[in-house]
């Protein structure tokens, strides 16, 4: 509950190597940018509810690479059906971490469903994800890090709802996307 979101993100993407990271809109995108810009980072500024499915399309297209989706509880809740869709594909190179502050942080801190009883790990397990985990301490976050790069793991990290200083990464989607594709060695269409 007291975990600092920036410290959590920094740990999750530490020594990222060639890990492909998709960040959901809002604070997850700011956190990923603050952890250090990389061509293999995809920052979303919209398309709420779409981060997990972007991760799936990417994971299916790049079966030899690992994909990590990091997003907030509100973004994950809006795309909750994707948890069923992803599990149904049986993709093994995709993992997801939800930074759960139980708030809609961008819009004034209104309580989200995870603050009103929804257990996203239970949802993911019910959808058929082979592994789920919940982290409440930095030691548990550190233990998640290698698992998120090896398993089809759905994780919830309970973070502090405290607001942190804004960090705004690049927001030109066409530029971010082309840099991302170039990092994968994909020629322009």
């Amino acid at each position: 509950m007291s975990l600092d979101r920036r410290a959590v993100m920094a740990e999750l993407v530490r020594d990222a190597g060639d890990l492909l990271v998709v960040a959901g809109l809002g604070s997850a995108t700011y956190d990923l940018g603050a952890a250090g810009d990389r061509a293999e980072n995809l920052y979303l500024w919209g398309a709420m509810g779409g981060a997990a499915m972007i991760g799936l399309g990417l994971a299916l297209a790049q079966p030899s690479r690992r994909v990590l989706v990091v997003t907030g509880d509100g973004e994950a809740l809006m795309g909750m059906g994707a948890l069923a869709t992803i599990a149904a594909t049986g993709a093994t190179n995709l993992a997801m971490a939800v930074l759960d502050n139980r708030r809609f942080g961008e819009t004034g801190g209104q309580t989200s469903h995870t603050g009103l009883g929804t257990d996203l790990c239970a949802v993911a397990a019910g959808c058929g994800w082979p592994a789920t985990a919940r982290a409440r301490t930095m030691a548990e976050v550190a233990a998640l890090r290698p698992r998120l790069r090896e398993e089809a793991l759905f994780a919830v990290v309970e973070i502090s709802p405290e607001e942190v200083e804004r960090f705004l990464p690049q927001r030109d989607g066409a530029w971010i996307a082309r840099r991302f594709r170039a990092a994968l060695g994909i020629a322009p269409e």
Partner: protein
Amino acid sequence: MRQAGMDAALMCVQHGSREGRNVTAWQNDVFDALKEAGVQQIGYVPDAGHAIAIRRAEADPSIRAVVLTTEEEGVALAAGAWLGGQRAALLMQSSGVGNTINMLSLAGNLRMPFLTLVTMRGEWGEFNPWQVPMGTATQAVLGAMGVLVRRADHPAEAGLVVRAAADLAFGSSVAVAVLLSQRLIGAKVFVQKPHERVEGGWREAGR
């Protein structure tokens, strides 16, 4: 399942086939067009008009078919596929277009190719009034989100229209929708057998 089976059987007795149309042939043409365009991921929310494409995609080792819980997932799936160097298509019914609206912002913002095939309901001999509002709004909604809209009304042109749409989408990195008209698909005819009015509704006569 029984309902799905019944709907599939009804395909044979739809208005389209009354006009002498072969529902199987154009559906195969459409899938062939997707194959020729190099599509490797197909997200779909099932519809009878996409039944052959879905079945062939599921059976094709070079294509990953992904069943979706809602159509907007298919837009995001296509974005991810393109970021990873693959081409994708989204198969859906006109009623699903409304579910994709905000997610379509991905196409313009990433300036990515996006191809969707939309089987139309609510426009040609429609039996179900609940299909009419979204069927009527489909083209305007797609246009409002910056998606280029093409349309196939006749079986002979369906494959060609999809080929041209795929070339446009993937060649020019734009979003393109092909509306497969309900005339092409045929209006669902629920009342093929005589029905009789009973307390609270209708039921098949002689049951």
